[in-house]
C-alpha cells in the first residue's frame, strides 16, 4: 500500500491539558505502527509541517474555549469524513466546564484577568465539541485509555464502526475484585461514571472522581441519596460530582436528582 492510499488522519488540540495527544505519543509500543498504518497529515504536537486538506478521520482534543476555536472546529468538520471527540474536554467540556451555564463566567474571567481587558481572540465559556458541530464518535477519558483509543483507531482506519462501551466504572472495578469503597462510606462516583479507565483509582484504594464523565445508564437519584446517607449535604455532593462532568452532567442531576 502506498502512503497515498493510507487513511488520512489529523490530530488536533483545543483548550485542555494535551493529555490525550500525549497519551498517543506515550503509546511507545504502538506509535511507530500508527505512523506506518495511517497517513498522519497533521499532528502538530508531534511533528512540524502539517498538511491541512481532506481527512478520513479527525481527532480533536480539548474544549471549545475561544471564538477562534469555534471557527477552527467548523473548518475541521468540513474537511473530515469522520470527527472523533477525544478526551473528557472534547466530550463533556472538561473541568473548565464544571460551572458552565451558571451565569457567572464573565465574573470569573474578570477576577482572574481584571477589568477592561481586550483579548486577542475572544474567550467563550468552555463547551464540548458537539455544542457546535456534529460528532461521529466519542473517546471519553481524562486522559483517554490506550486500549480504547487503539481499538477505535484500528477500526476506523480499516473502515469498520467502533463498538459502544456503555459500562460504568463499577463494572471494571468488580472485575478487578476491589472492595467497594462505598461500603466504607467513601465518596466514590463510579456507579454514575462511564468506565474505560480499568477502575484505575479504586485499584489504588482511591475513590472515582468521575473523570470519564456521566454514564447515561447510571441511577443518579439513587446514588445521590446514598451519598447523602454518608452525612453530606446535597450542595456538597453536587459540587463534587460536577468536577469532571462538564455541562453534560447537569441534565442527569436535574432528571435524576429529584
Amino acid at each position, binding site marked *: 500500500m502506498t502512503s497515498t492510499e493510507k487513511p488520512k488522519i489529523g490530530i488536533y488540540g483545543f483548550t485542555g491539558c494535551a493529555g490525550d495527544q500525549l497519551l498517543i505519543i*506515550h503509546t511507545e509500543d504502538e506509535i511507530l505502527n500508527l505512523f506506518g498504518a495511517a497517513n498522519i497529515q497533521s499532528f502538530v*504536537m508531534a511533528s512540524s509541517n502539517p498538511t491541512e486538506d481532506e481527512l478520513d478521520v479527525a481527532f480533536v482534543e480539548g474544549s471549545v474555549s475561544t471564538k477562534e476555536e469555534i471557527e477552527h472546529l467548523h473548518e475541521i468538520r468540513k474537511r473530515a469524513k469522520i470527527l472523533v471527540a477525544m478526551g473528557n474536554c472534547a466530550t463533556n467540556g472538561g473541568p473548565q466546564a464544571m460551572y458552565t451555564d451558571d451565569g457567572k463566567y464573565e465574573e470569573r474571567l474578570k477576577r482572574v484577568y481584571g477589568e*477592561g481587558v481586550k483579548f486577542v481572540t475572544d474567550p467563550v465559556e*468552555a463547551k464540548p465539541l458537539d455544542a457546535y458541530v456534529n460528532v461521529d464518535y466519542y473517546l471519553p477519558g481524562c486522559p483517554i485509555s490506550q486500549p480504547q483509543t487503539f481499538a477505535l483507531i484500528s477500526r476506523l482506519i480499516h473502515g469498520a464502526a467502533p463498538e459502544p462501551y456503555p459500562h460504568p466504572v463499577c463494572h471494571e472495578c468488580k472485575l478487578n475484585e476491589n472492595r467497594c469503597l462505598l461500603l466504607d462510606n467513601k465518596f466514590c462516583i463510579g456507579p454514575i461514571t462511564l468506565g474505560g479507565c480499568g477502575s*484505575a483509582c479504586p485499584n489504588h484504594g482511591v475513590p472515582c472522581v468521575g473523570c470519564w464523565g456521566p454514564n447515561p445508564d447510571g441511577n443518579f437519584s439513587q446514588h445521590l441519596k446514598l451519598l447523602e446517607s454518608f452525612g453530606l449535604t446535597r450542595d456538597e455532593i453536587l459540587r463534587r460530582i460536577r468536577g469532571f462532568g462538564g455541562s453534560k452532567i447537569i441534565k442527569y442531576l436535574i432528571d435524576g436528582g429529584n
Partner: protein
Amino acid sequence: MADENISIEPLARVEGHGGIRVEIKDNKISDVEVRILEGPRLFEELVVGKTPQEDLSIVPRICAICNLSHKYAALRGLEKAVGVSIDDTTHLYRELMHHGEMIESHSLHIYFLALPDFLGYDNAIAMAEEYGDTVVMALQMKKFGNKIMRMMGGRMIHGENPVIGGFSKLPSEDMLREIKEEATELLDFAVATIDLLGTLKIPDHMERDTQFLCCKPPGEDYGYYGDLLITSDGQEHPVESYKSVIRERVVSHSFAKRSMYNDRPFTVGALARVLLIGERLKGKAKEAYDKLVNERWNRNPLFNNHAQAIEQVYSLEGIIEVIDKILSGEKATIAQPKQETGIGTGAVEAPRGTLIHHYEVEDGKISAADFITPTAMFLDDIEAFIRTGGERLLASDKTQDIRLHFEMIARAYDPCISCSAHLVEVVYK
C-alpha cells in the same frame, strides 16, 4: 529582508496551541510575540470552595506532561496550609515519583520534540530511518519514566494515588527492585545521549546575557524542590515571598501577565538548575556536567536540551539511590492534617522550571489560590532571545532558515502552553 511579519502558527512540537509572531521593519525586529492561543480555563477560580483533596485531582489537569509536578507543588502548598508533615519514607517516594516525571518529560523533549530540528527532520518517527537505535532506545527511556509515573501516580497521566499526607497505595518491593534494575540498564543510553548532544553544532546568533532562577534543594545534593528560590545574582528568597521576586506585569500591546526578576527576563528549567546547582551533581551526572557545560551555557538557551540530558542521567542515578533508601528505611504512613485553616506556598521544579502553588484554606475549603507556571516565567526570555537572534541573522543576511531558528529557540525551553494559558494573551487598548 524587506519589511514583513513572520508568523509561525501553529508552533509545532510543543505542548499546547501557540505561535510566534515577529515583525520586521527596516531590517530590524520591531516586535516579537510568543502567542498563547488556548482559551482561559480559570483554574484559580475553579478550585475555590473545594477541599484540598478535590484540588489535588483538579490541578494536575492544568498540564498532562507535568501533571505530577502540579500535584507535588499542590501537595507542598496544601500540606503547609493544613499542618501536615510527612515522614522520611513518603518523602523518598515523592522523589521517586518526581524522577519518573523528569525522565518522561525530558526524554519526550530531547528526542521527540527538540532533536529532529538538529538532525533535520519533521519528527522523531521520520528520524527513525537513519537513527533507528536512538529512537528505539528513546522510546524505552520514555516508557520507563511513564512506568514510574503509573506506579506512583496510579495511572500514567492524571493518577489519583498521591494524597494529602502520602500515597494511597505503595509499590511492592519486587516492583521497586525491577525499577532499580531498569534504571541501571538505561544509564548507558543516557550517557551515550550526552556524547550525541556533545557532537551537535549549536548556533550562537541569539546569545545574550540573562538571569536564572530555581528552587534551592535542602541539604547538599542536587534536587527538584525546595523552600528557597535562588537566583543567578547570588540571592536567596523564601518561597513565600514569590510575589515580590517574580514580578508579574502587564505590557500594553501583547501578553498580560509576564514575569520578570529585577525588571529583566529570566530563565527557569534544566538549564537554570544545572547552572545554579550543578556543582552539587555526583557520579555519572557529574561526569556529564564536566563534559558538556561551558560558559556559552549562560547565554544560549539551546543548551537547555543538553541540561535536560544531564538531568536524565541524574534522575536515573537518583532512582537507584532513592530505591535503596526506601528498601532499607521505615515503612511509610499517611500523615493527617492538624488544622483546617491556614496558608501555604509550595514550590517544586517541574521539568520545564519552577512551579509555584499558593493556597489559602479556611475551614477545610480553599478560599484563594495562585499558580505561577514555568512557561509564564520564561515567555519574556524567549522573546528576548528571538529578538537578539533575529537582529543578528538580519544584519548578517543569514535569513534563509530564520523561521526554524526562531522555533528552535522557543522549543528549547520546552514550553507548556496548557500551563501558561491561564495567563492568556491580552491586548490593552
